[in-house]
């Protein structure tokens, strides 16, 4: 059948027209609506959904609600927007908690249907005093920027199909590539089904990672790049999460948030992106190891849809760890290439790039997974010790390490700087033991999901009785491998994959053991202070199951390949078993996930600004219970006016009426890097109030405008430059190589 390419041009034309329409709409001025009124809530009496402004008429759009209020306590009430006349999903809003220091709300809501019955309501606990005042509703461009992004993505997709078609017209139709793309697409699709709902599974880490995304968004919106301190986190005090926990990949959902997507949507798009990347990277690596695209796809499915990865990403909401698992196959493939490939092989010469990319990805997503990866890399090096000292292989290893370092320096330098100079809580975590949090052997074999843990389980057996193992199928794959090896069936197999599979099986068993509560973590912790800190920082031994999964997938892939070459019927049976095993496990996971899906978040304000998980990156001694939204504080000799805080940038005019130096305490956590200057360029001294809150010293008789900024040290900037040069260098190297070929 003859194709009709003009259809795509028509679609592109329509998309372009709509995009122009969006841009025009964005360029138009936005409207705002002001309502006057006052409502005093009776103290001691609780109110639910009490309307303070009713019958508000608005068209489709994304709006910002600014309701002024006065209250004497924090988080005593929630302001939100309701409308019973619009369709389900036509109004998206979670509202905002009220704080005494803020004075007015400032949150967004999404309205997808014109209405005349919008109501601003208050849920009041009855504690403390509360009086609401005037209301201001401001129209934003977020609806149109959101549409613009969707249209641009659709246009890119059309362009990509056109490019592929043109490429095939020149080089000929490539059926294999189509099959692989289809396979990866199917795997990624199945892995992403949990994100096609309108809610999220309320995993233990979910809110923390949503705060990270919002932190990047807020940082970018207030002019920070790269975002080091999340400015609005910890009640607008600025939290140094970004310095310790790299947020590189979170720029994608943060940009989506800036473009007008809700939190749930941005998070879902990010996770879908992760799934696509994981499926593709896993296919690339396993195809490289086994040299077979079908086995590459099977291994990609076993890894991407693995129980442990699902547990971490979907059920726990451990975005950092889930993101890190995207890069694990690269490290395994890199190790395979360095130690098993012939030095004359073309693939061997790119091993440093694979290894470097894998490590850089791990460092910049989850340091703990990187720590575990480093341990396994050392173990691999020890077992291949002779090859480590072969110059060509050593050069690949060293180049990979330097490449990873170059790519990660922008993050590592601030991380090390803060870790060494700031007394953060994470440095005091050596007393926490982890062995009791280990899995039990039965969990490792768990294949099916269950939505509810019985009461008798809670608090017992490490209260982690979830299906967090690697699954029965992978364990059976490993056992078959050991049997084949032990009973002499693999004697005739002399290839590199076999040698690598033996090591993978051995370390896979070790990883499984290390994840359990029978591994002597407590005894290791007692050896020395460094061991105690390292072990304690792991938090959960089950993190080793990430490596357990990837190594067992490698071993299972080898077994399937052996059957493919030697016993066709077993090959077919193992493929069917893999599909059935994944489907059975997956169906139960879906059922479980649906039952636990109880979080739907649209705007950041609804989460509050205080949750910081284990408070790892607060300065040791900071009393987090005293932190809330606050205004600058000073004694009566200081007059403060025009106080403004935008992210990490603060400015205020002040006058010191006394002859001696006075102190202004600002609602900012005292991390290294803040600097205070006045409008004449004079540097003012900054001190710590003892509770690790920032103070500015105002000289006696001083009058002027003070500006407090977070200024990155020169060596941080230098590190960023090195990373930029490394990226540019590798792009240049890649293009040159491609042209040479």
């Amino acid at each position: 059948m003859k194709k009709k390419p003009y259809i795509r041009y028509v679609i592109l034309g329509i998309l372009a027209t709509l995009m122009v329409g969006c841009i025009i709409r964005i360029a138009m001025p936005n409207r705002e609506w002001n309502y006057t009124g006052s409502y005093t809530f009776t103290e001691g009496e609780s109110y639910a959904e009490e309307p303070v402004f009713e019958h508000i008429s608005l068209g489709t759009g994304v709006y910002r609600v600014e309701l002024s209020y006065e209250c004497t306590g924090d988080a005593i009430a929630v302001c939100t927007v309701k409308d019973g006349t619009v369709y389900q999903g036509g109004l998206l809003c979670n509202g905002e908690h009220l704080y005494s220091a803020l004075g007015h709300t400032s949150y967004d809501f999404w309205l997808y249907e014109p209405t005349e019955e919008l109501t601003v309501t208050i849920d009041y606990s009855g504690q403390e005093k509360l009086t609401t005042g005037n209301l201001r509703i401001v129209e934003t461009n977020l609806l149109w920027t959101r549409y613009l992004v969707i249209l641009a993505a659709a246009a890119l997709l059309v362009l990509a199909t056109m490019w592929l078609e043109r490429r095939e017209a020149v080089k000929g139709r490539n059926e294999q590539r189509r099959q692989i793309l289809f396979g990866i697409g199917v795997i990624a699709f199945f892995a992403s089904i949990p994100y096609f709902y309108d809610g999220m599974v309320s995993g233990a880490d979910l809110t923390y990672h949503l705060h990270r995304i919002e932190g990047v968004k807020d940082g970018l919106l207030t002019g920070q790049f790269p975002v080091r301190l999340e400015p609005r986190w910890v009640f607008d005090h600025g939290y140094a999460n970004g310095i310790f926990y790299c947020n590189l990949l979170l720029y994608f959902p943060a940009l989506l948030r800036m473009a007008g997507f809700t939190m749930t949507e941005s998070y879902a798009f990010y996770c879908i992106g992760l799934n696509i990347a994981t499926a593709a990277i896993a296919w690339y690596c396993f195809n490289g190891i086994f040299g077979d695209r079908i086995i590459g796809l099977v291994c990609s499915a076993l890894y991407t849809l693995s129980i442990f990865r699902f547990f971490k990403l979907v059920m726990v909401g451990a975005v950092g760890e889930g993101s890190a698992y995207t890069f694990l196959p690269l490290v395994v493939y890199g190790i395979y290439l360095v130690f098993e490939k012939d030095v004359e092989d073309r693939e061997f010469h790119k091993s440093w790039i694979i290894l470097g990319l894998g490590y850089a990805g791990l460092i910049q997503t989850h340091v703990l997974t990187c720590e575990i990866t480093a341990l396994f890399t050392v173990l691999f090096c020890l077992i291949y010790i002779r090859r480590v000292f072969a110059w060509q292989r050593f050069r690949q290893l060293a180049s990979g390490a330097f490449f990873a370092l170059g790519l990660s320096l922008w993050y590592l330098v601030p991380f090390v700087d803060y870790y060494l100079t700031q007394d953060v809580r994470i440095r005091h975590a050596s007393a926490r033991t982890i062995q009791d949090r280990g899995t039990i052997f039965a969990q490792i074999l768990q294949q099916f999901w269950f939505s509810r843990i019985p009461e008798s389980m809670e608090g017992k057996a490490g209260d982690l009785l979830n299906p967090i193992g690697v699954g029965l199928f992978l364990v059976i794959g490993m056992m078959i491998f050991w049997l084949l090896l032990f009973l002499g069936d693999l004697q005739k197999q002399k290839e590199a994959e076999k040698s690598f599979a033996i090591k993978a099986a051995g370390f896979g068993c070790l990883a499984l053991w290390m994840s359990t509560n029978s591994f002597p973590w407590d005894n290791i912790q007692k050896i020395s202070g460094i061991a105690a800190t390292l072990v304690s920082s792991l938090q959960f031994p089950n993190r080793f199951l990430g490596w357990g999964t990837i190594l067992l997938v490698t071993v299972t892939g080898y077994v399937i390949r052996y059957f493919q070459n030697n016993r066709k019927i077993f090959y077919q049976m193992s493929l069917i078993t893999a599909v059935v095993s994944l489907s059975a496990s997956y169906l139960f996971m879906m059922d479980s996930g649906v039952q636990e899906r109880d979080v739907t978040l649209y705007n950041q304000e609804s989460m509050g600004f205080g949750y910081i998980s284990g408070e790892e990156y607060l300065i040791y001694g900071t009393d987090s219970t005293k932190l809330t939204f606050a205004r600058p504080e000073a004694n009566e000799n200081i007059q403060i006016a025009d106080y403004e805080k935008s992210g990490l940038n603060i400015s205020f005019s002040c006058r010191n009426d006394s002859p001696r130096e006075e102190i202004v305490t600002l609602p900012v956590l005292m991390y290294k890097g803040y600097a205070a200057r006045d409008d004449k360029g004079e540097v003012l001294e900054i001190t710590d109030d003892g509770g690790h809150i920032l103070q500015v010293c105002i000289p006696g008789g001083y009058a002027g405008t003070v500006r407090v900024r977070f200024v990155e040290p020169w060596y941080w900037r230098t590190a960023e430059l090195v990373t930029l040069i490394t990226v540019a260098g590798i792009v240049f190297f890649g293009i040159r190589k491609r042209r040479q070929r």
Partner: protein
Amino acid sequence: MKKKWILLAEGLLLAVLLVLSFGGSDIVFEADHQQLYRVEETGGIVSKDFALNPGVYRIIVESDIANGGIGSGMEISLEAEETTFRAIRGNRATLSADTEHKRITYYVADTVDAAHLQIQPFSEGGNVSYELKVEKTTAGRRILFVIVLVFFACLDGIAIFRRKVLCKEVSGQKKWINCAMVGIWMIACIPLLVDYLVLGTDSVQCLRETEYMLQGEWGRIPAAHLLYLWIPAGMRWIGFPVATSYKIMIAFLSGAALALLYFLFSKWGRDARLVLAAAAFGIWNPLAVKTLYVMGNPGKFVVCVLGYAVLGSVVWILLQKRKSQNKISPWIVFAVLLILVLQVVYYENTIILQSDVQYWYNEEPFMTGE
């Protein structure tokens, strides 16, 4: 030659361990009621600290009833403020007012620098007169000997099997049948891999009968139960904890049932794969799994297996006569086994997650009530 040296080394090591396991008990702590301290916050009484090494310990309580004994009763346990994960394994004992003599077993898995006895009396005041001793028993060395013996037996067995396979003394099919049998047995034993005791509705009765057997109260045990109770009783006699002994019995019964079914069906059937599937069904079927884990009734499990063996043999013989020429496709066997394994794993996963979690090491929880 090398093999002989290895066997000799194994034998020597076992002989040393055997001799060691006949040593006497050592008293590591001794005190009377006047040497104990009261903890104001809890109202409990504690002894002074003493160090423990890995091994099996026994708390001995001797009371002088004439001078008040242990008062109105008490709970006693071995505790420590700081230990590695589950270094002290045991269950608190409840002592009634008329207790004259009591022994409570505790297992210590790692060195404990400062352990103490903790007593919670049922009422305050009144005269008491009792003595406490903590002694290290030889059970720990006996357990070590048995573990090493089993370990060497397994290693040597595997090595012999491997040699026979490599020398082609065992056929390819037989080799994989043996491996599959082990695999089937291991899958049937998945609920035993939890570190707690998966208690069925009748498990406590089984555990009690084991203790009656150890105490020589034969009249309280139905005769038929002796068919399997000797396994946990034997393990308990050696010194193994309650949960371990119970789990070993279940594992043993599963393995024996599988071996019996395979042996029986292989007499009638020629297709080894089909025989294997039929034998697997014998211990993977929902009834067998239910009787073994959900009910915790080994007797019913044995009856189920024997019933299945008889019924299966009859059906098999009848089918053999009618369809002796037909060969079953491997795909059918594969499909049956796949369905079977999925259902058994699902059932076992449910059992693991829905079972009551009990860490039982000594007989106190079900004999005196923890």
